[in-house]
């Protein structure tokens, strides 16, 4: 942004020009999704065709009616009667009287045609509303349930935004476009074909005029669309530029003010803004020309019909034809939007199916252990190998034994593999080789649910959900009593600050829990873990965001919690793990040193270096010159 070049993150806002890979296959699969609604859908198609037929029939009947009226009028001189009018000779002239019964009956019939057609279309709309809404519901449900069966590796591969957009935007896109596509295609095709037939049958010369307008309209619309499309793509790109610059400027608000860069930043903005304005103008104006152009062509057709009709046919035919033209041009005007709707829908469907096709986690073993009784916390890693990606080996042939009740601390620089150990114990990932055993039994023989409820976990990532503090703490164990909640909260030193919040325990945390500080969030997650009464504890940087004084206090509660239980503690603050029974020092996925704090210091190796560095006022664990993940 400093000197804006290509611009960061040029985004394709609404993926307008996303071309799907394989339309046919996706379309087939998409239609299968509706298999339980086939009956209703066919019904809708039938009645929509019926409605279109009625709409076309109306002008035909109207024309006949008008012809008869015309001939009545022509018979005026004779002083006779017609179908709808009585002409009676009277002194001085001819008296006209309307034969109301016939007239109203025939007009009534035409009105009836319109009424039935309108009713039928309304009915179709009514039915479709439910079908498309419930389609979205089912898809959303399947999607969410599928996510539960996917391994964590899937979530690591992409941003949340990506997945979220598929589960929400893409599903919405499909359900919104469903009725539009169905209606437009069915009605459109019916009207097109039907009115063409009607026109040919009525007056073939005029029918050719109508047909003549098709290629012209399509060509014109296509031509304009081609130019405007280019501009729209440019517009999206430049708008992405603008958004990128604005977002970066707003995020770096402080720094900009501190370095008096307001003027500079505004100038860059103005340049992009002005550039955007030009493209915006072109894109919108060019595409806005489509409608008047199509109207103009319709008008020309209209004119020609009038003229040729005037020469070749009679007034009723002209009127009927004008009505046919109306019905006929609707679908043509809509072709452009239909094509793009279909494209977007297919693209969205493809994106959803990709997720639904993902490989799932292996299910729990058939006779999985489902009871926590008998879980003591004796762990052993036997020749365990694991890596997140095959070309970057992480843990290789690791062996470790942990006795029940021991506190094991794991230290090492970032990327050494500490959190990985945790991930493997919790079976968030499956190991590649070897076995992890709990109380002598391979953890794969426990059901995942049992394994995880026996282990209490406090993560560095303080995830809390949108809800009350009480409910967030209760997440640890849904049958916890209020008393137990307050106890755990006090032990975690969270009670005091909770009381200072409006509403106390009923205070609602917002999304991501950002209305309390990071340190406070961490205390809540500790309370949450405490209340789950686990047999085994995993503490991953549990107090990294809490200041050292508070940490000392919380430590006491944590110590009580860890008493007698097997605990795995990962910490950057070496002061918190000095008292562990065994310290495991990891580096690049390997255990390089093991022992108690005193023993390791005596070794004067890697651990000693880390430890001493800590007290120089810096954190060697984050010193590796590895560029952050981008």
């Amino acid at each position, binding site marked *: 942004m400093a000197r804006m070049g290509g611009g960061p993150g040029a985004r394709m806002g609404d993926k307008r020009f996303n071309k799907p890979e394989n339309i046919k296959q996706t379309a087939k699969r998409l239609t299968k999704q509706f298999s339980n609604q086939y009956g209703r859908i066919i019904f809708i198609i039938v009645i929509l065709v019926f409605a279109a037929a009625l709409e076309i029939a109306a002008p035909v009947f109207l024309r006949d009616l*008008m012809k008869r*009226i015309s001939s009545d009028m022509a018979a005026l001189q004779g002083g006779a009667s017609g179908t709808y009018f009585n002409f009676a000779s009277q002194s001085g002239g001819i008296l006209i009287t309307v034969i109301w019964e016939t007239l109203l009956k025939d007009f009534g019939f035409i009105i009836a045609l319109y009424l039935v057609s309108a009713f039928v279309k309304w009915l179709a*709309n009514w039915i479709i509303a439910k079908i498309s809404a419930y389609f979205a519901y089912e898809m959303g449900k399947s999607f969410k349930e599928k996510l539960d069966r996917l391994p964590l590796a899937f979530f690591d591969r992409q941003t949340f935004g990506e997945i979220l957009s598929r589960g929400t935007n893409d599903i919405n896109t499909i359900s919104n476009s469903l009725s539009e596509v169905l209606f437009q295609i069915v009605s459109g095709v019916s009207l097109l074909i039907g009115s063409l037939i009607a026109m040919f049958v009525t007056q073939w010369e005029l029918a050719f005029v109508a047909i003549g307008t098709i290629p012209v309209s399509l060509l014109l619309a296509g031509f304009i669309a081609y130019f405007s499309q280019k501009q729209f793509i440019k517009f999206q790109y430049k708008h992405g530029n603008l958004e990128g610059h604005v977002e970066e400027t707003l995020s770096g608000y402080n720094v900009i003010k501190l370095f008096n860069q307001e003027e500079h930043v505004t100038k860059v903005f103005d340049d992009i803004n002005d550039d955007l*304005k030009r493209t915006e103008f072109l894109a919108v104006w060019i595409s806005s020309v489509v409608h008047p152009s199509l109207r103009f062509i319709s008008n020309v057709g209209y004119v020609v019909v*009038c003229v040729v009709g005037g020469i070749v046919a009679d007034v009723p035919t*002209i*009127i009927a034809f004008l009505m046919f033209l109306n019905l006929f041009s609707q679908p043509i005007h809509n072709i452009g939007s239909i094509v793009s709707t279909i494209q977007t829908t297919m693209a969205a469907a493809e994106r959803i199916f990709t997720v639904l096709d993902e490989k799932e986690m292996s299910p729990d073993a058939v006779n999985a252990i489902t009871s926590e009784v008998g879980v003591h916390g004796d762990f052993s890693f036997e020749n365990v190998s694991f890596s997140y990606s095959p070309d970057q080996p992480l843990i290789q042939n690791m062996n470790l034994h942990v006795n029940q009740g021991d506190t094991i601390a794991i230290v090492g620089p970032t990327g050494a593999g500490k959190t990985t150990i945790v991930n493997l114990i919790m079976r968030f990932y499956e190991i590649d080789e070897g076995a992890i055993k709990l109380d002598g039994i391979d953890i794969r023989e426990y059901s995942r649910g049992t394994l995880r409820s026996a282990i209490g976990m406090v993560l560095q990532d303080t*995830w809390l959900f949108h809800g009350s503090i009480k409910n967030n703490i209760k997440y640890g164990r849904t049958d916890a009593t209020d008393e137990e909640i307050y106890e755990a909260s006090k032990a975690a030193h969270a009670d005091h600050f909770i009381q200072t919040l409006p509403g106390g325990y009923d205070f609602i945390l917002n999304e991501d829990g950002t209305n309390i500080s990071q340190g406070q969030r961490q205390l809540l997650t500790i309370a949450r873990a405490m209340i789950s009464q686990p047999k085994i504890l995993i503490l991953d940087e549990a107090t990294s965001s809490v200041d050292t004084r508070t940490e000392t206090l919380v430590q006491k509660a944590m110590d009580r919690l860890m008493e007698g239980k097997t605990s795995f503690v990962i910490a950057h603050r070496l002061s918190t793990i000095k008292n562990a029974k065994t310290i495991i020092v990891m580096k690049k996925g390997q255990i390089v040193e093991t022992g108690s704090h005193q023993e390791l210091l005596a070794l004067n190796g890697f651990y000693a270096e880390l430890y001493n560095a800590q007290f120089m006022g810096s954190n*060697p664990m984050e010193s590796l010159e590895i560029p952050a993940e981008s």
Partner: protein
Amino acid sequence: MIKLFRFIGKQWWQVVLVVVLVFIHSYLSLELPQYTGKITQYITEAAGTPEGIQSAKIWEYGFTMLGISLIVFVLMVIVMAINVHISSMFANRLRHAIFTHTQEVSLNEFQKFGTASLLTRITVDVRNVKNMLQFGARLLIMSPTILIVAIIRVIPINPRYIFIVALGIPVLLIVLITILIKAGPLFTAIQKKIDRVTLLMREGLTGVRVVRAFNQEKRENKYFDQANKDMTDTTVKAVRTTSFLGPTINIVMNVTFVAVYIVAFALLNNQLIVTADDGLRVMNSFSEAVVISQYVMQIMMSLVMLGFLFVMLPQASASAKRINEILDTKNTILDPINPIVDTKTTGVVEFRDVTFKFPDADVPTLCKITFKTTPGTVTAIIGSTGSGKSSIINLIPRFYDVTEGELLVDGINVKDYTQNNLREKIGFVPQQALLFSGTIRDNLLFGNAAADNKQLDVALEIAQAKNFVMKLNKDESLDQEAALSLALEAKVAQGGRNFSGGQKQRLSIARALVKKPEIYIFDDSFSALDFKTDIRLRSALKNYTKESSVIIVAQRVSSIMDADQIIVIDDGKIAGIGKHNKLLEDCAVYQEIVNSQLDPEEVEKTKLMRQQILAGEGGNNNG
């Protein structure tokens, strides 16, 4: 929303032009039915005459119609050009106004909105208002024009036809308004429910580990299902409510169309034809009906257009409100009318009994803070999380104003400087290093746009960043100077993502160094550095900054142990002030902090190791 119209600025004459052209356009497009009528009339009349129907005459009418259509088309294209021009200029000006305003307001106002909301307002909300201007304005003119002109055309033919319109319009309006009233809140509700479904799905993603760790998958799905169902039901309701609109419009239009004919014939009923002209008129009543039915259709369509306008209105209105919220936000930190420029001293910061309270808080964050820093000294501020350390240093560049007491820089109250001048004196390195997309040079020049390569070189060296920077864009063939130039062109991604935490911090420090300010403020800026780099950096810094005041905020005692004065903050108050040894003796809070971080013997060991490093490594620069 009317308030925003001031952004149309000098283009008002164009708006008037659009109004006039749209008026002409509507008027002309309503001429076409007349010609249909003329043709049908001619045909009906000519059929009875000896010459019969002359195609030439019909062609004549035809060409006129074509001509009018062409003019109508051209007019519309011109109108659209002007219209789009106006609205894109409008959007441009509006965006500019919002952006510049965000640059002007102070931190407090800014945080009220947040980055995401401001971004949405400058993009989505501006778009909504612009669309309203673009379409709405046009519809607003076309609709009544067509309505009035059509009615005017109809009346001379026979006022009785107005009755049909008079019947159809209310029916249409009633249905339209009822649907809008019912559907409106439903659509707002849908939006909220979509938000909730999205929220739940997102939480399931961000918290996937925690959800699985606590075996809450089933519960999460239950909540999601509830929200999903709720949203679905409301959607069905809303869509079904609006489903009445289409058919109603259809029926009203078609029935009216037919009714015109019936009225035409009703008008004929019991008519006595005496003269030939009478007869002609009777025959033409047919053509009249044709013409009128088309006008009636137009009237109905224009009403429907107005209906759409009303649909757009609430959304555009809401957006306009959000934009006005920003534009109306008053800046609370203002420059003085007669700012002071010259100062006698440089780099002296003095807090006199400063109390500070956040604008909406009840309890003050800082209470009676008093201290002074002088050039050539290092002042450290230490305290636990939430004690108020950051607030103290945020006051110096006037991100907030003090509530009570005085804050002086170089003997002058900070309020008496222009903010620009004040910030020129300060080199601030924030806790989270933030770099901007561009090149390294761009980022460093933030400190001083006129700095030359030599100055950048020095800054990078002291910040211990030169080594890793020189490794970027490496070209063996170049000499030192050219190599540096090339290295400085290395790309920086947004936020500095392509560098590690430690590297970002060093670049952030270099940026401040380039500025060579009178006052340095380091907000816990050395935390991401390893100990060797930290020590070297601070010793190099010492020399470079010896004419400036240095203020360091830290969490760790070991970072600040040898500062010239250490200020201990506890709960917003100064708990102790002095050098390390003195505080160890008489400041309880300081003792607690130290003890929570170090063992007593380790304090000694630390001193020894530090001396060792400094002695052993000299002035080596190791990135």
